[in-house]
């Protein structure tokens, strides 16, 4: 009653009405208003989250505010939190390494028990997680959010210590390596020469990043006036540049415009830093010539470089591959976990869920997907605690602000069916190189990511 009387009193004055109207206009412009937060659910469930990256931290915060009395434990030995979407900007010399670094502890709520140790065993039958330090954590519900492993050994001759020297870059390796990559790229673009880009044949996180870095290097060469004496080679792992057909065609068009030399079916196997050469394997193939089937055996091809961005094969971490949670008939060499693509719930162990890169689903190893994974897992887990079925569905949404030069990007969003699903249809065209898409990548993405970590977005 007091609130209502105050409101009436406020509206009765001319100044007060103007202020309220301004607030109302602001709200009306936003479209959807926030749904009322549900009352916390009382439960004594033991929930264990393996991994305190984007997915693990985000769901920990959501569950901490959604549940009352639950025992929520998060297991991760990494003390630093990395904002991985920022690596490309660091490697382009636009941000310092510190831009992507914060501490794991700063994002976790006090009510969550953080075990600062690495998980080395997940037993979904006995329902417990074991750590390197010998701690055994039993659970009623498990959320696997480990992320993935970069298998640097998969590229023979490559050593992380050499990143930043002799024209070797590795944007994915971490903030410091991304900064070292910038030093190598900066030195390369001063002089020009041959730059090599590509991607691994395994599933990978942010499949747009290798393309972005090729575009950015091209841009620097042009800005510095060294493009004419340079060659950019993009070694694609199969016959496409991007998994979504319509985006693939657009990138092909842009590469043709920018004079990027594309090689198909090239899988990076080794580099020789001394000789500055990279060796690729081109798999065996069949073709028909004059009505006769011609078999071409697998061959290796070596290409000289002055600058190379090395991206290694990516797999599930060993702890996951040894847990029995992986698909048995899909991605058998990579070990992604067997979850329902729509609910992200494990198909054999219904008290296990997956968030982020670790999920064995056709698309979505990006932070943008994690942002959608979190509410879906939250919905199904909270429903399970009440012996109900959740209703939230993950449609495969992922997003890639595909930078095409400093100052422009294409805001590409798509789902499992390769449909483009723009957040701002009719306003921001997904296949156009736009300044607004760049502005979003530069200014809004990290705050949105941080808000997601806090469970607020």
């Amino acid at each position, binding site marked *: 009653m007091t609130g209502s009387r105050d409101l009436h009193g406020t509206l009765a004055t*001319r*100044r007060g009405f*103007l*202020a309220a109207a*301004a607030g109302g206009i602001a*709200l009306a412009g*936003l*479209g*959807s*208003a*926030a*749904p009322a937060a549900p009352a916390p659910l009382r439960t004594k469930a033991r929930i264990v989250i393996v991994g305190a990256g984007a997915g693990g931290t985000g769901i920990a915060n959501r569950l901490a505010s959604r549940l009352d009395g639950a025992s929520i434990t998060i297991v991760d030995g990494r003390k630093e939190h990395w904002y991985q979407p920022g690596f490309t900007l660091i490697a382009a010399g*636009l941000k310092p390494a510190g831009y992507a670094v914060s501490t794991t502890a700063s994002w976790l709520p006090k009510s969550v028990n953080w075990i600062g140790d690495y998980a080395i065993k997940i037993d979904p039958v006995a329902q417990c997680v074991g750590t390197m330090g010998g701690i055994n954590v039993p659970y009623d519900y498990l959320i696997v959010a480990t992320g993935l492993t970069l298998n640097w050994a998969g590229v023979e001759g490559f050593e992380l210590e050499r990143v930043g020297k002799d024209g070797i870059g590795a944007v994915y390796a971490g903030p410091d390596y991304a900064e070292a990559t910038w030093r190598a790229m900066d030195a390369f673009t001063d002089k020009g020469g041959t730059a090599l880009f590509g991607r691994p044949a395994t599933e990978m996180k942010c499949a747009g990043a290798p393309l972005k870095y090729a575009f950015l290097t091209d841009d620097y060469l042009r800005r510095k006036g060294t493009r004419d004496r340079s060659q950019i080679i993009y070694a694609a792992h199969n016959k496409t540049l991007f998994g979504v057909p319509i985006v693939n065609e657009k990138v092909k068009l842009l590469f043709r415009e920018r004079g990027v030399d594309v090689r198909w079916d090239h899988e990076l196997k080794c580099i020789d830093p001394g000789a500055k050469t990279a060796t690729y394997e081109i798999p065996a193939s069949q073709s028909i010539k004059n009505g006769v089937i011609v078999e071409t055996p697998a061959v290796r091809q070596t290409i000289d470089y002055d600058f190379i961005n090395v991206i290694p094969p990516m797999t599930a971490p060993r702890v996951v591959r040894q847990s029995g949670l992986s698909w048995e008939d899909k991605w058998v060499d990579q070990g992604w976990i067997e979850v329902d693509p729509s609910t992200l719930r494990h198909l054999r162990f219904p008290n296990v869920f997956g968030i982020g890169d670790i999920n064995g689903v056709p698309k979505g190893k990006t932070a943008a997907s994690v*942002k*959608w994974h979190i*509410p879906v897992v939250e919905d199904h887990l909270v429903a399970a605690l009440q012996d109900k079925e959740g209703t939230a569905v993950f449609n495969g*949404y992922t*997003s890639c602000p595909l930078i095409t*030069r*400093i*100052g*422009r990007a294409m805001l590409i*969003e798509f789902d499992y069916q390769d449909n483009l699903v723009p*957040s701002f249809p009719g*306003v*921001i*065209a997904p296949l*156009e*190189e*736009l*300044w*607004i898409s*760049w*502005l979003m990548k*530069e*200014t*809004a993405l*990290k*705050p*949105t990511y*941080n*808000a997601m970590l*806090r469970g*607020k*977005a």
Partner: protein
Amino acid sequence: MKELTLPMLIAVWEEMFGQSLFWALAVLAFLVTLAYVFVLLRDRSLSMRRFLLAQLSMPFGAIASVMFVQRITSSRLRDIGGPIDVLVLLAVGAVGAVGLAILVYTTQSLLRKQR
């Protein structure tokens, strides 16, 4: 994007500027607007002399805000790529122009005696 709500937008803005700075800026913008409304109601009319100076300041506000956005985002005018970019550029300029005009008008009105 799954959904866009007001609390979500506020959370993003808080992260963008830092919680204290965001709310300080929001309160400052509100106070300047309130002061503008106050002098309009107090004077019961627009002073054309003050309004002229406010209008003259508008191009400076527009240019300054566009330059500020370009500087913090490492971009240039040649990055304008489509109609939406032109609209964004105009909107950034308009916000700077109107913001500075209101500030100039209000400051003059508060500093000078009521007519």
